């Protein structure tokens, strides 16, 4: 009975925003792990996702349908259920020694590989077939054609949706709290339960997630800009690399033009 009386009193406790600042180290510890999990799982998912996409598009009679099934299954299981199933179900049943962080990263990677695989497949298939034909027609091999011509174009197409997925990854990484991974959400709820400062603590968590996802958003925008196509000869460019390239192109231009003039004065005729 006593505790029931305590709760309403706490709910009316004065809002102390400085509580977030005072406990910043706890939050930042969680942030650090959240960022670690999100980046590692996303990097792995990018690699596997590309593999999934390529195998799914391949003409391999065995692997292509397996990949299609993989995508459908892993997209269909709720992440939270999947995390619990892997860590408490599979790991215990089959006595797999795996840490909670490893299990969390594994599950996020598996699921995001399926999502990213579909995004990458869409991006690769969006590249016109004429590109492949043109590359083959100058004698390039299939792998050269893929890596030099198709993939760079597909990457530009998939940057915005992939960026979305990364933001999703930051948020979804909070679901591994359920198996005790001390990431941002977990440390927040532990802190809240210990201090009863629910509002301040969860407000802090919300703010930190907001900061992370906003940073990711600007990161994606920056990457998009980096991939923009700019004529370094006719545009004022700021990056030193682009400027050097401009100087090089101008040198080539001059060299070729003077060669042409030398040749035409030699033979007395223009080309």
């Amino acid at each position, binding site marked *: 009975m006593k505790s029931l009386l305590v709760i309403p009193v706490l709910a009316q406790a004065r809002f102390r925003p400085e509580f977030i600042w005072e406990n910043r180290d706890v939050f930042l510890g969680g942030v650090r792990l959240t960022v670690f999990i999100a980046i590692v799982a996303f990097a792995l998912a990018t690699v596997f996702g590309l593999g999934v996409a390529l195998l799914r598009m391949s003409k391999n009679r065995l692997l292509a349908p397996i990949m299609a099934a993989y995508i459908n299954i892993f997209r269909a299981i709720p992440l939270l259920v999947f995390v619990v199933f892997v860590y408490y179900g599979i790991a215990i049943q089959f006595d797999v020694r795996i840490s909670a962080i490893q299990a969390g990263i594994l599950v996020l990677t598996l699921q995001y590989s399926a999502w990213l695989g579909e995004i990458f497949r869409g991006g690769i298939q969006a590249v016109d077939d004429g590109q492949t034909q*043109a590359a*083959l027609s100058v004698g390039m091999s299939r792998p050269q054609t893929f890596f*030099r011509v198709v993939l*760079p174009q597909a990457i530009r197409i998939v940057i915005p949706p992939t960026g979305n997925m990364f933001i999703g990854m930051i948020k979804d990484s909070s679901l591994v709290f359920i198996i005790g991974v001390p990431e941002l959400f977990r440390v927040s709820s532990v802190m809240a339960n210990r201090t009863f400062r629910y509002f301040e603590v969860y407000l802090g968590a919300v703010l930190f997630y907001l900061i992370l996802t906003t940073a990711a958003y600007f990161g994606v925008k920056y990457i998009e800009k980096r991939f923009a196509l700019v004529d370094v000869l006719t545009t004022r460019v700021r990056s030193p690399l682009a400027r050097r390239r401009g100087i090089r192109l101008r040198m080539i231009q001059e060299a*070729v033009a003077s060669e042409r003039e030398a040749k035409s004065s030699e033979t007395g005729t223009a080309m």
Partner: protein
Amino acid sequence: MNQTEDARPVVRLRKIHKSFDTNHVLRGIDLTVGQGQHVVIFGPSGSGKSTLLRTTNLLETPDSGSVWFDGKEYGPGIEGEDLPRGKARLLRQEIGMVFQQFNLFPHITALDNVALALRRVRRVKRDQAEHRAATYLDRVGLLDKLGAFPSQLSGGQQQRVAIARSLVMEPKVMLFDEPTSALDPELVGEVLAVMRDLAESGMTMVVVTHEMGFAREAGDLNIFMDEGVVVETGGRELYDHAREPRTRAFLQAIL
């Protein structure tokens, strides 16, 4: 100008068959292209002329038939023959192709479009490859567009870059698949001018085109195709004195 009856053959297609599902697009085509010869292929759409061109460099693999080039046989081959087959990739390194839709690589500059295969296929060092690429861009009148991306170029300019991209590999034969069909009328001239220069330089060319002016002027060997077969071949006189009624009907319709 380069036509001689006994010109050394460069490419020879024999008994080329190709079907797409139930559609028998090529029904046993034979064609010999001589050194320096300018072959023009024309005919109604769906006649198989583009497919024929694309089987020449094996972008399209025929169901059966053989492509002879420079002493080697390529493609699936002919039943009953057992000749060693060459690799399609090696054939394509020696035969250039220009597409109706240009198909420039949109993510790299005009210069890189031309230099790419030099570097990756011929393994030429970057400096040298770029210099050579620029020389070829100069040849098609685009030295000032080295740093431009395809989207910043007009259709005619894009097609000229595409021609330079093929020429830089110093192919023995150039294939043109309706190179001016996707261009605005005012841009056709610049591309045809480049092709004329190329023809005059003695390049062996096979051109699928609807540009009858160009065909009359450049075509040493003119081929009318319909429904997957060669209906009629002839020299320059073909355009005015076709023997086959189908050829005459087609020429009348488009001229």
